[in-house]
């Protein structure tokens, strides 16, 4: 008797309560970590010359994980000399077919050790285990597989011309995807025949140094890959070292600018992949539930620590209320907490400094007059956490609409016409990525041609593939990573 037994809910709201709570489901495998990590130079782990180490902590509970070697200019010098020697004596003259075999071997070893790496990544960086397990590590292996295939086919990159490796490449990577950014940098460099000196981010060195163990296991010739951990000065030493003929940097626009200044007047090649403030544009004819899913992927993936995060939602005014209501309902079921729990959607913010920066920018949003909403979910007592947050009534002049927050904070703006959407989307110093949501194919083509962004996703967001070049416009940097274009940046065409 359905009419009498079912009550209609006058409030018409869904209840996401605790009727069926998920029990903790922690990943418990052993990440096989060392107490102390030395520098990986010339195929061996060596103590830093001055004997200095710094602690790396787990951002989810602020406990120390290991001591990491701090490389100074002398250590970087040894690494560069080792790389140069390896380039001249082995790697640079090795046939591409043979180089490819090493890359395939590294890719397979990463797969073999995938679980161990995923746990280490989550422990050191705070990202949810399901992301390191299902995205970071498989994608890192995929980059090695992809570039392994190119190693003996380099002449097809520039038909009719010859290509040659640069020599020693200095690379500095960020903390948001530690192993994946390493793979983006090292895989094409090695495939092209370069040797590498890489500096991982200060807060996330462990998987990079574990990668040194993979290089050993793969039997990679000594000196082809060198990992020098440390802080900003270490990175500066890598970039300014006379032996590094090409530098590749991924990180903040501010540091990118200082690198450009420091390299002015040298003949070093350079690629920079910097910040972003991407517009995710939702038209009224978009499939709204999937658009909402894309908005969530766009800004809450990896706690929003993504340079191409869809941090500005531009939604057509006629559907703005509906999209906002759907978005609130969707984020009500996001799970924030212990990154090692397999059911966690948002893990820990990478560091205390980053948490302070996010908190400060979110505060500015409130003081400048935007309206803040968060799920009010419970956060762990220890560690660095931030609730998924959305701001409405945001205008283009607000700091939260202009500055890269690099956290789980979404700014929502509205537009009325496609022209206005384009104008607002392009009105930023950045230009790394953008998203377009519409059922109309022609509109996707028009928008993607006029958006000043290196990547434009249509009816999806934050999709990556080794075959697809990634990089920015304007202050988001230059040069590409991935695909044929990314590989060409590691070669000179002669």
């Amino acid at each position: 008797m359905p009419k009498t037994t079912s009550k209609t809910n006058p409030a018409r709201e869904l209840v996401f309560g605790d009727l069926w709570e998920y029990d903790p489901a922690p990943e418990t495998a052993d990440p096989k970590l060392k107490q102390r990590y030395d520098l990986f130079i010339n195929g061996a782990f060596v103590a830093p010359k001055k004997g200095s180490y710094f602690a790396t902590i787990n951002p989810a509970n602020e406990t120390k994980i290991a001591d990491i070697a701090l490389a100074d200019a002398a250590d970087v010098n040894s690494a560069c000399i080792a790389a140069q020697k390896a380039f001249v004596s082995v790697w640079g003259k090795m046939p591409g077919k043979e180089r490819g075999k090493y890359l395939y071997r590294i890719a397979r070893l990463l797969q073999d050790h995938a679980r161990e790496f995923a746990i280490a990544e989550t422990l050191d960086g705070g990202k949810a285990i399901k992301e390191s397990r299902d995205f970071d590590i498989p994608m890192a292996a995929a980059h090695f597989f992809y570039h392994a295939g190119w190693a003996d086919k380099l002449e097809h990159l520039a038909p009719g011309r010859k290509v040659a490796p640069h020599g020693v490449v200095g690379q500095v990577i960020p903390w948001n995807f530690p192993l994946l950014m390493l793979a983006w940098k090292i895989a094409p460099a090695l495939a092209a025949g370069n040797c590498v000196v890489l500096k991982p981010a200060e807060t996330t060195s462990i998987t990079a140094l574990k990668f040194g163990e993979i290089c050993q296991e793969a039997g990679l010739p000594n000196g082809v890959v060198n990992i020098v951990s440390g802080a900003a000065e270490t990175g500066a030493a890598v970039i300014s070292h006379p032996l590094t003929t090409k530098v590749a940097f991924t990180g903040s626009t501010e540091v990118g600018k200082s690198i450009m200044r420091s390299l002015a007047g040298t003949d070093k090649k350079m690629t920079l992949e910097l910040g972003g403030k991407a517009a995710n544009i939702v038209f009224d004819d978009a499939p709204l539930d999937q658009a909402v899913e894309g908005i969530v992927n766009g800004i809450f993936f990896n706690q929003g620590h993504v340079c191409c995060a869809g941090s500005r939602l531009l939604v057509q005014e006629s559907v703005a209320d509906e999209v906002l209501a759907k978005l609130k309902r969707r984020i009500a079921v996001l799970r924030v907490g212990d990154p090692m729990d397999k059911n966690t959607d948002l893990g820990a913010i990478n560091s205390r400094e980053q948490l302070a920066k996010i908190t400060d920018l979110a505060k500015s949003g409130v003081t400048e007059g935007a309206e803040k909403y968060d799920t009010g979910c419970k956060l762990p007592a220890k560690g660095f956490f931030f609730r998924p947050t959305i701001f409405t009534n945001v205008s283009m002049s607000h700091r939260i609409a202009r500055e890269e927050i690099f956290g789980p904070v979404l700014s929502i703006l509205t537009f009325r016409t496609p022209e206005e959407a384009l104008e607002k989307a392009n009105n930023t110093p950045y230009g790394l990525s953008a998203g377009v949501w519409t059922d109309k194919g022609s509109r996707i083509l028009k928008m993607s041609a006029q958006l000043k962004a290196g990547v434009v996703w249509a009816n999806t967001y934050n999709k990556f593939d080794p075959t697809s070049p990634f990089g920015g416009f304007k202050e988001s940097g230059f040069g590409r990573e991935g695909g044929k274009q990314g590989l060409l940046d590691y070669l000179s065409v002669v």
Partner: protein
Amino acid sequence: MPAVKAPTSLRRLFDEIGTVDQVGIEERVAKFTTRSLKKKSKVFGLRLAVSMVDLTTLEGKDTPGKVASLCQKALRPHDIGDIPPTAAVCVYPAMVKHAKKHVGGTSVKIASVATAFPSGQAPLKTRLAEVHAAVNDGADEIDMVINRGAFLSGEFGRMQDEIAAVVEACGQSTLKVILEVSELETYDHIRAASFLAMRVIRPGDFIKTSTGKTSSNATLGNNQVMLEAIRDHFLATGVPIAMKPAGGIRTAKQALHFLIAVKETLGDDWLNNGRYRFGASALLNDLVRQLEKERTGAYQAPWNFSEATEGY
């Protein structure tokens, strides 16, 4: 029934209810399968799933004896432990009176497919007569099939009128409207058919994915399209519609994935057998097997749980 004006074209209906992006929704449901259920939450989910099963036999060779043993299985899914009874048994109309003898007066409902199941290709009069017969024999719930021919040829009014006629024929019995999603093919069609059906049925009536008689049946994808349609309809009208995926859900793990979809899409109010059911037969034994594993800490010998529903 309020007079409902049927939309004259699918395009107009989509302007109102929106469309579905296939890639996006399949990405969404893939996330449900990565949820990890441990300990108490797993047992809760498994027991909930048992209580939602419409234990089904729909075969030409069904006999009163087979229905009797199915009813006993529904009442008491396992000889040891305190596993709850299923929500209902689901049989052909001719078997309703036999089921009545065993589950009449218990918590287990009698559901009967009707309306020339599974094709629905009989005159409306015949289909309605079948519904009347099943209801008169004691069916608490009627599982009807929509007129896919009418839907696909754009005769939405006819499709809705026929559902409304069945609603009337049901009287006090609950109605489940089978969309037969594999014959509608696209997610857009499934969403459209869900709305057309929901607009003419009563609060607490169901929409259901499949007959189980075609090549593809319930998937997380089409389940999600229908859950989201139910959600949007509820938020717009306040009318709660229930949901029943059927066919192809054979393992406890699959059932838990479907329930996670319910939990994260419709919330707690739909986590009961008044609002969500599984149309299944083999599923029940796998649920029992997993519950016994949780209770005893070890998998029991395979002969404790028959793989074939003939063994019920």
